[in-house]
Every structure is written in C-alpha cells, then in structure tokens.
C-alpha cells in the first residue's frame, strides 16, 4: 500500500496533520463504543444506536507529529448502507469492526473491506478490529482466522474491547503511524483542511 512509509517522514517534529477516519461494520458490534472509549475514555453498556452518522475528533501525538483524527462513526444497519459512501469518500483511514461473538458480523466486515478496496481512495489505511474481546468465553470468530484474513488483505488487525479499553488506543495509534505524515496526499474533501491551524484537543493521548 502506498501509505506504508515507515522510513523518514517529510516534515519536522510537531507537525500536525488531520486525517479523516471512518468506522464501518455491522450494527451493535461496538463502533460507537470504540470511538467513545478512544475520544472520551467512556463506556456505556447501552450505547444508543447511531442513525446516519456521528462525528468526533481526537488528537494523538506521535514521536514526530501530531495527528488529529476526524472520526465518522456510521450507522451499522444495512439499510443505511447507501449513506456510507458519503462518509468514506475521501477518508484516509478506516476501521472495519466486527464482533468476535458474532460470525455474521465478521462476514459483514469482509464485505466492507471489499467495498472499500473497490470504492474508497486507493491509499486508504484500513484496520480490522475484532471487538468485544472481553467476551472471549462466547467467541465464535477465531483470532487466527481473522488475522489470516487481515494479512491476505494487508489490513492492520487487533482484537479490541471498548469495555475494558484493551487495544483501543493502540489500534488508532497503529493507524496514525501508518498514515502519510506530510503534505496532503490523494483526494481531499471540503471536510478536511490540512492547513488549518490546530487547537489541541483536551484529553488527547500523548504518549
């Protein structure tokens, strides 16, 4: 993938970049919960369903740059599918989420990956998140199976738990590290203005 530039990045330290990230996946797999955990450090057992899409931002600090994620959290129900392109168009990163206790949601995740490979910008950074890892006793999707699929399709892969916060920050950080830090690449939309001055988000996870 074009975005895999682990070598020296253009631009000096403390450079700030904005990236549009979209979350996709079957309903009730925990997309909104992952975002809520990442952005606000909260978890609601009964996170209400998302209609259309929700939007949140969060800033993370890497060694040599600050990455601001503009996160589009989409509705999971199949019927809202027609809206999805509006949100993933121009996205530089995507997290496709499935629920490790639900086989169907894994199949659905594969469909999303296919659709992104076809329709989204070609250098999009994609990650696969097997959420609800805290419920491993009810697991039906094996870690190895998902990992093999992720490798085949060059996806980042982690099992996460929005509830215990396991791997939540990590998956966003991993994406941040794979994103091309530097002048804007690929297509951008009106929603992403790379040159806009930044204000630091409260509660950003600078490590």
């Amino acid at each position, binding site marked *: 993938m074009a975005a895999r530039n682990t070598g020296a990045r253009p631009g000096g330290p403390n450079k700030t970049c904005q990236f549009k990230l979209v979350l996709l996946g079957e*309903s*009730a797999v925990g997309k909104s919960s992952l975002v809520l955990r990442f952005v606000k450090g909260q978890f609601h*057992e*009964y*996170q*209400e*369903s*998302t*209609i*259309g*899409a*929700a*939007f*949140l*931002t969060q800033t993370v600090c890497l060694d040599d740059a600050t990455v601001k994620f*503009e996160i589009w959290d989409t*509705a*999971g*129900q199949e*019927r*809202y599918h*027609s*809206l999805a392109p*509006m949100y993933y168009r121009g996205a530089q990163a995507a997290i496709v989420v499935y629920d490790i206790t639900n086989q169907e949601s894994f199949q659905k995740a594969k469909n999303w990956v296919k659709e992104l490979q076809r329709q989204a910008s070609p250098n999009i950074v994609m990650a696969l998140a097997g959420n*609800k890892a*805290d*419920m491993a*006793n*009810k697991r039906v999707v094996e870690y190895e199976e998902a990992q093999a699929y992720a490798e085949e399709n060059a996806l980042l892969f982690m099992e996460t738990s929005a*509830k215990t916060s396991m791997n939540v920050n990590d998956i966003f950080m991993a994406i941040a590290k794979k994103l091309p830090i530097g002048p804007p690449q690929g297509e951008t*939309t*009106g*929603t992403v*203005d790379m040159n*806009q001055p930044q204000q630091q988000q409260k509660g950003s996870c600078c490590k």
Partner: protein
Amino acid sequence: MRKLENAKFGAIVVRGVEEGGRTCINGLPFVSPAIRMLGRFQKLKSLKHDNLCACLDLIRCRSASNLVIVITEVHSTRLCDILNNSFSPKVIQNFGYQIADALYYLHSQNILHSNLSLSNIIVLDDGKRLRLSNYGTSFVANYGADADLSGHSTVFAFSPERFIQETSTLPSQKKTMFGPWESSYFVEDETISAILYDCLKVNPRRRHRMREMMNKLKNSDACDGKDSFVTTIPEMKETIKELHDQKSWQFTSFSIEDAYFLWRLCGATPENILLRNSVIKLKPPLTTLPSIVIEDFTIFGNEKKRQFFVASSIFIFADCNLKSKLSELSVKDLKTSLELSKLGVKSVEPDLSDVHLANLAVIVKEKDALYQAKRMSLLRHLVSAKGFNEAKDFLKSTVRQDNPPVYRNAAWSVLLDVDDSDNFLFWSLNTLQPHPSDRQLDVDIPRCHQYEEMMTSPAAHAALRRLLKAWLLTNERYVYWQGCDSLAAPFLLLNFNRPETALACLNEFIKRYLHDFFLKDNSAIIQEYLTVFNHLLAYVDAPLYSHLAELGFFPELYAIPWFLTCFAHVLPMHKLLHIWDQVLLHDSSFPLFVGLALMRQLRPKLIIASFNDAILLFSDLPDLSIEKIVSCSHRFRSIVPPSCTFRVHDGPWTEKRIANEVEPFNLNRTLIAMTVAELKEMNCPRISSPEFIWRVTQKQICVIDIRLSSEFARGCVVGSVNYPSASRKQLKSIANALKTATRQAYPICIVWGKDHKTAIKFGAMLVRIGRNYVCILDGGFESIRDERTILDVAH
C-alpha cells in the same frame, strides 16, 4: 373510574434479592430485580376491580438500590379490626362472594394473591364492601425470585402443592391455579361449610375453582352477591348531597390515580417520608463496605450489614397537604360546561392566577398541584366526551397551552383520532412469530432510551418488541429502520398496558408526520425533506444558511436522525413529549419548524463554527430549552409561507388536515413537482400561486419582478417592483422594498417570466448577501397571468 372517596395512600417496601451490578454472560449488566419489578408492576396498575385496592406506583429507592416502594390504596378498617362484631350469615356469604370475585379476577390475570390474611382485607366505610390489599407484591417479585417475600406472604393460606413448590427451590409456576385454597378459611359459617369443604380438598382436581365457588356463594338463597349494592335514585341523591357537604369534596372527587398524581406534587417524595419515619433504615455507609471488590464491581463480604431492615406492614401517608391545597378550589374550577363554552359563555371567570400560570414554563405548570387539578378535571371531562366533535375541538384548543401528564395518553389518542375500533388490530396479529427484523430488534431494543428507568425493564423490552413487530406486520410497505425503536417508545410508555392503543397511535403518527419514511428505499423522500428544510433555513436565516453552505455542511450530515424519528432519537423523553404535544396539533410541516428552532438555538455557535466544530455540536447536542424551541417553532410557522413547506412525498393526510385551518394555512400548497436534483439547485423555497395571490391582496408580500421592463409595463402584479437586471449586484432601486419586507417578516417573492434559471440565480444572490424571507413564485408570471384582480394591466 374509581373515586378516591376516603382512601389514603399507603406504602409497602419490598427488598429485591440483590443489588445488581453483576454482568451477565452476554456482557450486558445484569438487570437488577428492582428494575424487573418495575416492569412487572405495570400490569398491576391496569387491574380494575371493585374488590381490589388500586396499585398506584412502584418507586425505586435512590438511597438503597434494591428497595422498591409499592404505593397502594389503603383504608382505615381491616377485616381483623371488626372481627369481634357478629355477622349474619348473609353478610358473611356476601363477604365470601366479594373475596372470591376478586380472587377470580386476579387468577384470570394470571396473578396469585399469596398474602391473603385478615389484615389484608379492607372493609370500606359502609361496612358492606370489601377490598383486598397487598395482593400484588408476590406477583411483582415473581413469587420470590426477585424479592424477599418473608412478611409479604401468608404461607398458611397456600394450597399444599404451592406450599411445596414455593418452599423448595423450584421456580414458581404462575400458571397453576391454587386459588380457592386462598380464600377458603375465611368463610367460617355453618351454612356454607359444604362449600368450604370442597375448597379444601387436597387433590387440586377435585377442588373448587374460584368460578364455582362464586356461583355457589351467589346461588345459595341468602346471598345475592353484588346486587345488594344497587342504589335507588333517592339514595343516590342522598350520596351526592353527602359528598358535597363533605369538607374535602374537591379532594375526594378525583379518581384515585389523579389524586395520587396531585399528592406527589404536594410534598416530600415517598422515599424521604419512609426514611424519616424509619420504615426504611439506612446504615452509615462506612459500615456497609464490602471486603472484596472484583472486576465490574461485584462485591463480596459484609453482606449482612448491607441488608436493609424493612417493615413489612403498610405505611399510611398523610394527605393533609394536598387536602388543604385543594380546598382552595371552587366548583367552578373543577366543572366545565361544554354547552356554555359553546355558547361563548365562560363557565369559569378567567382567574388572574391562571392567566399568570398559563404563561409560565410547561415544566413549572406540571409541578403546580392546583393548576394540574383544574387542568385534569377539564381534560378528564373532555376525554370522556371525545365522541362528540365539539368536545374534540375544545380539547384541541385546550391542550394547545399544555397537556397534563396524566391525560397525555388520552389526549394524544384523541388528537390522533384513534378510537376504540382501531384497537382490534393489535390482537389480530401474531407478534411472536419470527420476523426478518428480529436480529436488529434484538440489538436495538436493549439500548433504546435506556436513561428512562421504565425502558430498562424486561417487560418494556418485550412490549416494545411486540409493538414494533405489530407495526411491521400492519405496514407491509415499511421495513424496520434503526430509529423506529426510538419513535415507538413514547407511545409504549404512555400506553404501557394498552399495546393496542400504542400501535394505533404509532400507525397514525407515522401516517401523518412520517409518510413513506420507512420504505425500503426512502432516499427520495428523505432527500426531498432535507432539501425543503435547507430552503426553509435559507428563508428564515440566510446568513446561517450561507455560512453552512460555504462549509459544505448540509442537513444530510446532521438532520437525518432528527426527521427520520421526529426528534425521538435526539431528544430525551421528557423533552420529546413536550415537542410532540405541539407536533400533534399541527400538520406534517411542523417538524420542519422544530428543526429550524433547533438551528436557531445553536445559531450563536454555528455562525462562527468551522466544519468540525459544527458537526461536533450536532454529534453532542447541548442541553436545549424546550420552552424556547416550542415558542420558536411557532414563530417560524407564523412567518414561513405554508406553501414553502410543500413536499411531493407528503402524505394525503396533510391536505385533509389543512382544510380546517384559517388563511393562509388552508390555501392550496401544491407546487409543480421537481426532482431532488432540481430542488438542490435552488437556494430558497417556492411559494404557490394561490398563496401568492392571497398575500398580494392582503399586502403581505414584497414582489420583485425580474422580467424585462417592456413585459412589466404590459402587465404586472399590483404593488410589485421591477428589477429587470437581475444579475446586477446593485440593489439600490429595490432596497427600500426589501427593507420594509424584512421589517415585517413578509416574503420577498421573485416573479419571473420565462427564465427560471435567472430567478434561481437571483434568489441565490439575495440569500448570499444575507436577505431573509426570499422565495420564488412557483410557475412564474404565467401561473398568475389570468388573475386580473391582482394585476395592473396597461390599457
């Protein structure tokens, strides 16, 4: 309706088996027994029987999460108090019949009494009538599965098989009817010992059922059961006279449910009263700490200290506060004459305090006992007279100012024209059969309006699922969209024990306000809706519209959940109810104005926001003042020309609805159909020619004619201004006309000849420079060419 009469309110405290906080195997928190009891209690509320004390409310304690307080009707005399009196066999048999009747009714509702004892049988003041009390506790506690019932059940009234079952660890079987055993030991008279004997047989098959027992008690010569309660007209007159001579007739004339609502408004919460009277005893928190806390706050150790001591008897609340408050009311306050109102005679002199109150915030009014007492009396009267059109109209005008919470369900049914014949539908549907939407319902219902206590109970989840499935089954064109759950929830909460009414209301609401929104492919409908909304935004707030358009921030990004669920997914329940109170009084365009009012509330932030700030604002809506939103929605409705809200995909209901309105709301709103793409090219709404003509005759419009001056000279609209050079930016020649229109909030209407494109461009330009109230005449000059009355034609 049962009048309060001399009843008081009493409390029974029940202790749930555990505090909750555990996690189930599916990862979701364990539903606490208190919540499960709350859900089950709703059924008790719906019980209506002459020989049962009303169950009024179940309140979860804030200070101790596993305690619940059951509020029930109580009377001062219990059967055990008068046991020393001697009774004739006839009276005893009569008592027996009443008890059997009540038990039969309970059993028909799948409820077992479990706590039948002399102290739980109430004797009313006339000494003839009995009522059972404290009969629902076991049912609410799922016969011991959810709560500690020691002190709430009378084991020696259990039948043998039940005794075995409930004292073993087996879950109780509600379906088995042990009934007659329960009442058998009360009827201790020789004349009916035979009946008794039949009731006490060990083999349940040989034992009398309640029905048989009732028949025997009724048929035996000494007793005529309930018939002894028939009163003659002179007796009735006497009762009425007595009632009105009573000191607190205002109080006693309310139904028991209404009186309870008012009582709640007049003093401390039941929980605080019980704490103060040591019915619930709290221990210092320090002494109740557990020894170990693991994972998701499961706690171990020191359990004994965390248990509450709870008295099992009924605690009777004082009602002097309410009585003294209501004594201020006069007959005029509580009685309304439809006949006099119709004749224009005010049956009630407008009270100054009323006028003052009527202008207060709805939330304040809802907490004012006197105001609510008057409103409730009026509403009860109107709702029970709903069959008459006049009463219906009167009701509509009454709830315009506010809707008393107790009568909201009834008022909504009237407003939605739901009548009893609509109620059969629900029961004809098989709502338990599998449905393609099952999996989606499974994941959506447990997270729908969960901040609302009632909605977290398993009973509510089951009821919502049935309601949604019934809705899907009755509307084959529609499919389940996420958000339908939020939409159905208010109707469920208002009609918890009447799913048939909830369904009828939901059906009608969708038919009126969300026509075709839930089609499998609803994009045309939604897109049109959002575009019309965007045009209206340009109409009422051009600067904001232009700012958002510049950001590329369109309603598609934020307003879909608003309109798809008529705000049910974005506003908390208590606010939503107030918005819908208003929506139900208007046609299908009203939600658009609510949307505009929301934008107006957010305007100070939006107008300076960047794209990200703007969308963040909508993702996390701040606490909004519903009062402001309601008044703002009304204001927008009054300034926006009704035809500007026209949608091709609107349902047929609106057209019928507006016929009864006054001008301009009753004018034909139909506009020439345009595709969404065509609509999106425009930046302002269109006005229909009938409304245009009306506004010209009323001089409530500023007409800007962009045709060539030669055409203008040949014939033009009275009072219109010609501005042929529509592309020119200099607007000096029409500046005054625009200013006047803006000041009066009149539409600035662009009249065009053949070139629609130029009209659109000119409209866009006016909006861009921040001109509000801009619209375009639908069909242009051609559509009004023959309307001689509004035209100046050159001779």
